[in-house]
């Protein structure tokens, strides 16, 4: 069967949305935590079709956007070394560090390569024995298995010239951070379907219970998202806080056990600094002692990286929904998409950049 097309059926989506309209009776705030889902929602225009009562807020689930400035600057310093071939997912190339991005240093002569998979970086290491190949291992639990596999393979092949610059982040601690905030507005969660493909959703019932929010595992096609929202709204209206699965073709409660075992071997929980949010305890993964030799931060001494997010930036408040972007003193003046001071202006789907662009460009465009 064609798994993607069937879930892009516009007619069916609209009928599910009609069911949401029939179900909803009052205002609800639902967060899709995953940036890929944010992307899908904006691309399909799903948010416009929802009843006014439902406000979708976009979570911090974009790994390129939440990677800390310090780690980006470390990556830039490592990538600039003449003996290094720095491999990265494509979307990391334009993330601004303190002064540069990977594009700039590539233009200035650094060897930066875009790969689709970390396993391609291992091949590059094999083909370039006189170079050090470093992979910028960003991502959530979905990407971690691929990165782990690359290290396992490099070790099995005896490669001494492959390492990871690790910036893994994990979803459950972020959900805790959001829901545990005193000014939290999120009443229901769409859980990230591909994270759950690996991890399952056995970790979520305690969260749902603790904060009293429904959590629905949701896929990425418009129909998946509409279904996830419907199931969340139904629970909200009923007052339940179950963990449900709207992505059962991909996700099981237990997740992929083999992948989880691989992750436990290669990675261990560490504190992680999220750009725009700050450090969340035990919210990321670092390499275990067995694989510490593959850690680029150990292999390359990049000196002391001194970074500081702008003191003007109120990203933390904005990301928690406490303030609106135009309430920031830097908004649109010192801070623009061309010269972002904070994460919400970095991401094209970030609240600050969205506000900036809409206010700048869209004054004459009324909703259809």
């Amino acid at each position, binding site marked *: 069967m064609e798994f*993607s097309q069937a879930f*892009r059926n*516009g007619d069916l989506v*609209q009928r599910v*949305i009609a069911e949401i309209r029939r179900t909803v009776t009052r205002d609800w705030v639902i967060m899709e935590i995953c*940036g*890929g889902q944010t992307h899908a929602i*904006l*691309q*399909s*225009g*799903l*948010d*416009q*079709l929802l009843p*006014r009562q439902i406000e*979708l807020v976009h979570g911090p689930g*974009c*790994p*390129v*956007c939440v990677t800390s400035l310090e780690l980006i600057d470390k990556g830039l310093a490592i990538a600039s070394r003449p003996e290094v071939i720095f491999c990265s997912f*494509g*979307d990391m*190339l*334009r*993330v*601004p560090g303190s002064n*540069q991005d990977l*594009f*700039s240093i590539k*233009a*200035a002569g650094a060897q930066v*390569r*875009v*790969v*689709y*998979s970390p396993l*391609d970086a291992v091949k590059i290491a094999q083909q370039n024995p006189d170079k050090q190949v470093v992979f910028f291992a*960003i991502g959530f639990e979905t*990407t971690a298995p691929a990165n782990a596999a690359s290290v396992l393979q490099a070790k099995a092949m005896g490669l001494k010239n492959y390492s990871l610059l690790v910036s893994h982040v994990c979803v459950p601690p972020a959900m805790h951070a959001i829901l545990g905030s005193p000014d939290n507005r999120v009443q229901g969660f769409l859980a990230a379907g591909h994270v759950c493909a690996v991890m399952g959703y056995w970790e979520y019932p305690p969260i749902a219970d603790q904060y009293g929010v429904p959590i629905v595992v949701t896929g990425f096609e*418009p129909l998946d998202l509409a279904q996830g929202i419907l199931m969340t709204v139904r629970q909200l209206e009923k007052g339940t806080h179950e963990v449900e699965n709207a992505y059962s073709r991909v996700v099981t409660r237990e997740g992929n056990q083999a992948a989880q075992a691989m992750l436990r071997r290669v990675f261990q929980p560490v504190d992680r600094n999220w750009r725009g949010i700050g450090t969340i305890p035990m919210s990321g993964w670092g390499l275990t002692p067995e694989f510490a030799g593959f850690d680029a931060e150990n292999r390359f001494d990049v000196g002391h990286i001194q970074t500081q997010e702008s003191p003007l930036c109120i990203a933390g408040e904005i990301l928690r929904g406490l303030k609106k972007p135009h309430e920031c003193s830097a908004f649109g003046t010192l801070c623009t*998409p*061309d010269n972002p001071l904070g994460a919400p*202006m*970095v*991401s*094209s789907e*970030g609240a600050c*950049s*969205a*506000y900036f*662009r*809409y206010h700048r*460009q*869209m004054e*004459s*465009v*009324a*909703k*259809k």
Partner: protein
Amino acid sequence: MTENKLPAFEGPVCPLPMRHDDQIVMGHGSGGRMTQELIARVFAPAFSNPILAQSNDFASFPLPADAALKGRISLSTDSHIVSPLFFSGGDIGRLAVCGTVNDVSMAGALPLYLTAGFIIEEGLPVETLERVTASMRAAAQEAGVQIVAGDTKVVERGKADGLFINTAGIGWIPDGREIGGELARPGDAVIISGALGDHGIAVLSARGELGFDADVRSDVAPLNKLIQNLLAAAPHVHVLRDPTRGGLATTLNEIAQQSQVCIEIREQDVPVHAAVRAACDMLGFDPLYVANEGKLIVIVPAEEAQAALDAMHRTQYGEEAVRIGQVKADPAARVLMKTLIGGTRILDVLAGEMLPRIC
């Protein structure tokens, strides 16, 4: 919620690109916003003149009065830098001929003559050059144009990428023919000659760097005969343009900007081959931003739209032509898309270089 705002969708870009205004980066060659900014900042002020300011794929101008020319001249140029030189469905030679034949033709001109400038990296097999020039000859014959002037330069190894070919082309625009990106009018129909993204995906697949094989052939083709047939059937065509670098979305934005109109297209009507869609799904690309080399955007008064489609359907390279939208007055200088599920969003120009996403 920003209920009164439409979401802008800048091609597949997250995060926003950093501004690069001190050195040239790859995005300046993307054909998208960074290219437009570079042109606006560096080239346009330096060369400023009314003909250049037309911002079409071609320059259109008369000759001195003594030449007694009826009609106008259409002139265009493109440099071709594709890697690899050969890919499914075409090669750099066919590309170099078709690209310029097409740009010249977007004036409604009869393309006549081409120049060809070769920049060759030392070490290129002469046999490669022979294959490329044979392909150029075949494409020129197909298009009915002649390559009448050339130039050959050789650069040291490591100072080029095998072979670059620049072509420039000249054509004759018959008297009274008025076609240009500034002429789209509310009410016009928007037609595309076939499925989008074949060229970009075919080349990316041939490049091999991302490790995928796609069952896709480049659409590279000369469009001048399609255009001649189209114009015979629909003489009041307002705009012709080939959505090359930056894809359909970027090209429609250029037109919307030039004509100060809104162009609205319907996602469900935009043709994309299944394999192209699969490749785009895999890489996080949007086919509306992927390059084409044998596709034609036609903007034509609604009353001639059916005649235009019928003529296109009867011509090679136009069999899959389809109406994808219409021109509206507002919001001016905007391209909107009705999504599959009935939403509407702004379709912006490509922000920088298109890159595979994980997110």
